């Protein structure tokens, strides 16, 4: 009896894990605000990055403002390898990262260990 119960719970748990973590729907891109030849967008760092996908205009310098609310050490560093950025984000502070999105394309940004990730879409 125990064994059957264990199997049922396990299958349910496994199904939940697969659905919860892998059944992610495509996040819609949030477009950065542009003023005075500079684009800016705020990204909340809390259990990941929100918005996860941000859209920038090519050729206009951009400020990404990371607002880290999550104290987890997993999120203490943000990497944008394509832009040569590795920045530590103090908890409870807004940290600005300036990049020059010159070439259109999709670039990944991640935490220090690449478990959390987001995307910069340059158009």
């Amino acid at each position, binding site marked *: 009896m125990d064994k059957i119960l*264990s199997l049922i719970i396990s299958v349910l748990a496994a199904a939940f894990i697969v659905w919860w*973590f892998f059944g992610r729907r495509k996040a819609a891109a949030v477009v950065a605000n542009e003023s005075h030849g500079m684009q800016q967008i705020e990204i909340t760092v809390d*259990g990941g990055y929100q918005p996860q996908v941000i859209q920038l205009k090519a050729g206009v310098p951009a400020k990404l403002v990371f607002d880290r609310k*999550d104290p987890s050490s997993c999120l203490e560093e943000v990497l944008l390898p394509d832009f040569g950025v590795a920045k530590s984000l103090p908890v409870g502070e807004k940290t600005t990262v300036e990049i020059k999105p010159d070439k259109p394309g999709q670039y990944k940004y991640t935490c220090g260990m690449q*478990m959390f990730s987001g995307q910069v879409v340059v158009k």
Partner: protein
Amino acid sequence: MSTRMRFLISLIFSVPLVASMVGLMLPGDKLTMWALATPVVLIGGYPFFVGAWSAFRHRQASMDTLVALGTGVAYLYSVYALGANADVYFEIAALLITFILLGKLFEDLTRNRANSAIEKLVGLQAKTATVMQGGTPVQVPLEAVKVGDHLLVHPGEKIPVDGLVRTGSSTVDESMVTGESLPVTKKPGDPVIGSTINQTGSLTFVATAIGTQTLLSQIVELVRRAQTSRAPIQKVADQVSAVFVPVVLLLAITTFNVWFVLLGHSLESSLLFAVAVIVIACPCALGLATPTALMVGTGRGASLGILIKSGEVLEAATDIKYVVFDKTGTITQGKPVVTDVVGDAPRVLRAAAALEAASEHPLAGAILSHTAAQSVSFESATKFKAVQGKGVLGQVDATPSAIGNRALMEQSKISIAAFQSQLTDLEQQGKTVMLVAQDAELIGLIAVQDTPKPMAKEAIAEHTRSGYESVMLTGDNHATAQAIARAVGIDRVVAEVLPTDKARHIKELQTRGRVTFVGDGINDAPALAQADLGIAMGSGTDIAMEAGGIVLVKNDLRDVVRALRLSRKTFARIKLNLFWAFIYNLAGIPVAAGVLVPLGLTLSPALAGLAMAFSSVSVVTSSLLLRYSRL
């Protein structure tokens, strides 16, 4: 609360729990164990639980998820067991957190050390500068210095920004920026580098670069970019990281069912196997393997004046077969010097210098500086007349004089028979020979050549010893190229190559093996790009940021072999780290799941936690060891 504080609290409460592991009975038994473990889980485990929860809410999983789940399961099961009067595993939950906090503490410590290269460079900057304002020195903050300002530095002071010396002479210690260990002599007209230390005399200089434009700032930027780049080899690790945690959770569930359902073990022992799987799988070491080695390797390079621009460069530096050198400015000094004076030297030099004093020909500079070095005095020629493509005519000490090539002598109907054999000899050595005549008679010869750099021969020998084949590529004529190649010990020479054809010759070589091209970075850009690895030799004050994968700040050829060695060693270290990280994480999982139980080998969750913590520390330590490897 700091990690350190959380660790100390966890440690204090965990120590008595260890006693229970070795079979000692605590007063109050299980209830005491619960009382000891609870603060550890709540205080020590807090950041992991918060991190895991917020990640979970956003459908993400991280290493917090694994720690929280591992300890959470062990703790909650034990609370249940306490009520049901079964065996409890509080010590596992507590020790797990303590070990992981310890690992994190070590990791932060070693990571900070690995990252110190950039901070060291930034910390070199002077805080103030002495600016000359209307003839009086005024001390101002560094930020107030503008390009074009006249600055003063006394002996022992830091040179605040890049500039050109106007007055004074001194020696400057540039080791902190260029890696050059010997002090460099500075006289008017010489460039100085910001953040280097002026040693023996006072200098005034004009600021030529400030702020982010200085050499030091450019180096810092370059190193920073390199350290955040990723080696291609890491891409596998990156892809694994993203799906790692959910997959591990599925593995843990499977492990539990295999033991509990299939093999009929007890609930708690099955649960412990599952917990051990979750705990050993934390991919910290995997995540640290590349960045830490890259950080230490590029940092070590920066301190030697070897700037490695990205992780990809390291991979490119492996299996290099040919090292192709540009000649002018790379193997040679890049400016001609007088090598031979034939005839009555003082007389020949006096006449030559007098004629060349007004000339703008590049060879004139070589003659004038040689004359000055020999302390030969002269007075400028009169009735000076330049003959395009041939030489110069004029009156020296009221005597008609000439300096130039054979054509000039022919035109002036002067016989060259007296020095014919010496002339042929010198020309065969690849030297440019100028003939000097006075009163319609040839009085001597001056041979000029761009000579090899002082350490070129040693550097090439070092390359050969290291198993590289050296090749020289040059636009110069065969005789000159062969002469230089012989002098430095290069067997293979490709001469009379047009600048635009350099890349094509590299391509040809590439069909036979991987090629490194070493050039000065300015006119060699296509060849630098075509080669598997481009190494740009800096000229001290400006780095060719765009050209080449590696930039050498010093003008020392021996750095080429050092750079190749450092790249190879750093890359080898990354591979080693990744190997160990995979072993820890991937081979550890089946062991934790109990595959080796038939052999009597089990891994308790606490031991799994220790192994996990140790794996991160060992990977970072392995990277730090790069600092001490021989180059």
